[in-house]
């Protein structure tokens, strides 16, 4: 019997470092570094982590607002999908918001993000405007990829966001390449390469782990463990602990729960700092949950119970958890919560209206953005035909 998913979470984050002993290579000892003990019963110890303690009131509100904006954006996109405004797949991030927002809130100038197809949260978290994001779902020319990528393929290199990738695990070597680029160009930064719990079983991911560890590349691999790869539970797909596979590559690894934004930030800050300052890669498993089906095409009635979903929603909803935290800190009050929510709903509606009003690309656009050279004809150096009929 597989224990209900909602039970799997970590009350304290765990960090494991590879043994530094030169003498013995036989065992990679792991050392669990416990976070500071909680002071009062019920108080969130991660709130006291330096990276969180230094947050201003406004910054905290913005973190909350970002999660709400993602939630409302996606709910709006679901309605648009149901109204047949959106084609293809739509993989919703609802329930996982604290992961992308927590991780991306730590980004500096030379930090980079790459993820899989469940990418709406990351795109908003790095600061992309929701209008072109929604328009991309509508397949409009005003979309962030001009209607050429769709839901799974959001990109914004100006915000160090490198996609949005549809092939499970295929983005992970690219993430290592971003880390390689940062290091080669002499910058102090790190790449965060996000994947799901199903992606860890792809060979390319392991090749990427090895390269990052072998060459000391500043890459933090983030496993967003939402418990399922489509309809297959972790227990039915993966042997052993997911992040612990890092030990095979002598990489540090950690685990934390993903419903607590403070915990995500506190955990990721440690690994990102090691990556930026010492070029140390790591694997971090963030335990989270998605409320919706794998994609909107998943009727979600074959592999988990409604009760499991409800249980998570009641006790670990990331927005609710952070909202309560900020209420207890006196940062938020009911009026502000209401205002943020109303604004987020309005923003999502505006994005949908914008998308609705936007033009589709034309057939003439189909062959644009294929080659740099054909898009920059005055600088073209090659000759001959690049397109065929």
């Amino acid at each position, binding site marked *: 019997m597989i224990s209900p998913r909602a039970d799997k979470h970590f009350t304290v984050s765990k960090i494991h470092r590879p043994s530094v002993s030169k003498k013995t290579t036989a065992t990679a000892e792991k050392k669990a570094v416990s976070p500071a003990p909680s002071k009062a019963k019920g108080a969130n110890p991660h709130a006291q982590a330096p990276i969180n303690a230094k947050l201003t009131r406004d910054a905290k509100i913005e973190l909350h607002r970002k999660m709400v904006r993602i939630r409302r954006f996606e709910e709006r996109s679901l309605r648009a999908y149901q109204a047949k405004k959106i084609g293809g797949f739509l993989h919703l991030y609802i329930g996982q918001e604290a992961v992308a927002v927590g991780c991306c809130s730590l980004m500096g100038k030379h930090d*980079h993000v*790459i993820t899989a197809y469940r990418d709406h949260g990351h795109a908003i978290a790095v600061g992309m405007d929701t209008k072109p994001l929604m328009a991309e779902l509508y397949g409009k020319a005003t*979309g*962030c*990829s*001009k*209607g*050429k*990528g769709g839901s799974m*393929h959001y*990109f*914004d*290199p*100006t915000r160090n966001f*490198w*996609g*949005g*990738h*549809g*092939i499970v695990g*295929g*983005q*992970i*070597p*690219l*993430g*290592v*390449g*971003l*880390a*390689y*680029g*940062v290091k*080669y*160009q002499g910058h102090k930064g790190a*790449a965060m390469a996000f994947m799901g719990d199903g992606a860890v079983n792809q*060979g*390319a991911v*392991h*090749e*990427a782990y*090895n*390269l990052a560890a072998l060459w000391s590349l500043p890459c933090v691999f983030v496993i967003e463990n939402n418990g399922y790869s489509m309809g297959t539970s972790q227990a039915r797909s993966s042997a052993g602990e997911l992040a612990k596979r890092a030990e095979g590559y002598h990489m540090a690894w950690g685990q934390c729960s993903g419903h607590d934004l403070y915990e995500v930030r506190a955990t990721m800050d440690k690994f990102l700092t090691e990556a930026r300052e010492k070029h140390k890669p790591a694997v971090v498993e963030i335990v989270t949950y998605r409320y919706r089906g794998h994609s909107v095409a998943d009727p979600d009635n074959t592999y988990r119970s409604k009760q499991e979903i409800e249980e998570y929603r009641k006790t670990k909803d990331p927005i609710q958890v952070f909202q309560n935290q900020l209420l207890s800190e006196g940062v938020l009050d009911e009026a502000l919560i209401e205002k943020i929510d109303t604004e987020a709903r309005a923003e999502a509606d505006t994005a949908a209206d914008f998308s609705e009003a936007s033009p589709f690309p034309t057939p003439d656009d189909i*062959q*644009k*953005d*294929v*080659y*740099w*050279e054909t*898009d*920059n004809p005055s600088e073209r*150096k*090659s*000759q*001959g*035909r*690049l*397109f*065929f009929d």
Partner: protein
Amino acid sequence: MPQFTYREAIRHALAEELTRDKNVVVMGEEVAQFNGAYKVTEGLLAKFGPNRIVDTPISEAGFIGMGIGASMLGVRPVMELMFWSFYSVAFDQILNNAANVRYMSGGQINCPIVIRGPANGGTNVGATHSHTPENVLANHPGVKVVVPATAADAKGLLKSAIRDNDPVFFLENTLLYGEKGEVPEGEHIVPLGLADVKREGTDLTIVTYGRCVLHSLAAASILEKEHDISVEVVDLRTIRPLDIDTVLKSVAKTHRVLIVEEQKPFASVGSQLAYMIQREAFDELDGPIHRLATIDAPAIYSPPVETEQLPNPQRVLKAALAAVA
């Protein structure tokens, strides 16, 4: 003009581009300390150091993908595949990521990577090591595909490839590495997408590329001497972009066409050429377009038979006689 081997010509192109642009790095299995599985990169480690010439583990998906990611940030990796045959384990990285990222990002991201290595049969290494994937690669809009036949072309085309802002796949040939040819001194650049008439003639156009250029030239001289047939040999040099105009010009002159390629026949580069020639020069043709390809089976090991499976001068000769009959 100085003579260099095809291998040296490629090495010189690498060295010149490494010197010119510090974003260029050379990576692959055995490219550094071991001096290259086929010694193409010999001496580069000593000259440019381990930051620029990097030995990778045997992880084609991992390191090719890594190169693609780095190229998105402006590094210009030149990745060596020990054999192009091994592209299959990196297929997703090469043809989903490198080929598509510009398009799917609406033109926001470039991927200035070069992937190079040998892609040929004829070395008795069996079916796993003898793939010629230029048709498969060129089937993906967004990529460029180059197959040089001579030392000079290899050098000039590789330099263009490294400077190109799109992903370029550069297919060499282990049986050409030792072939010598004249290479112009100084900066020698050959633009991608420009075919080269390697021999002029009036009775038959042979359209070909890669090592088959050599076979075709050998057959052409026999045809001239023994059969009084004048053959024009058009070397495509680049598969995508494709210089179809040079081909059509030659067809307008000879009115007969033989395509020679080291490809399996089904949906090959030659299939595409035949379609284009009939579509664009139908009235110029005095007979059907002929094609000589590799005999349609996985690459056989047996050394004397493999020679017969591939195009060779005798097979070209026979096919040419049929084409002008």
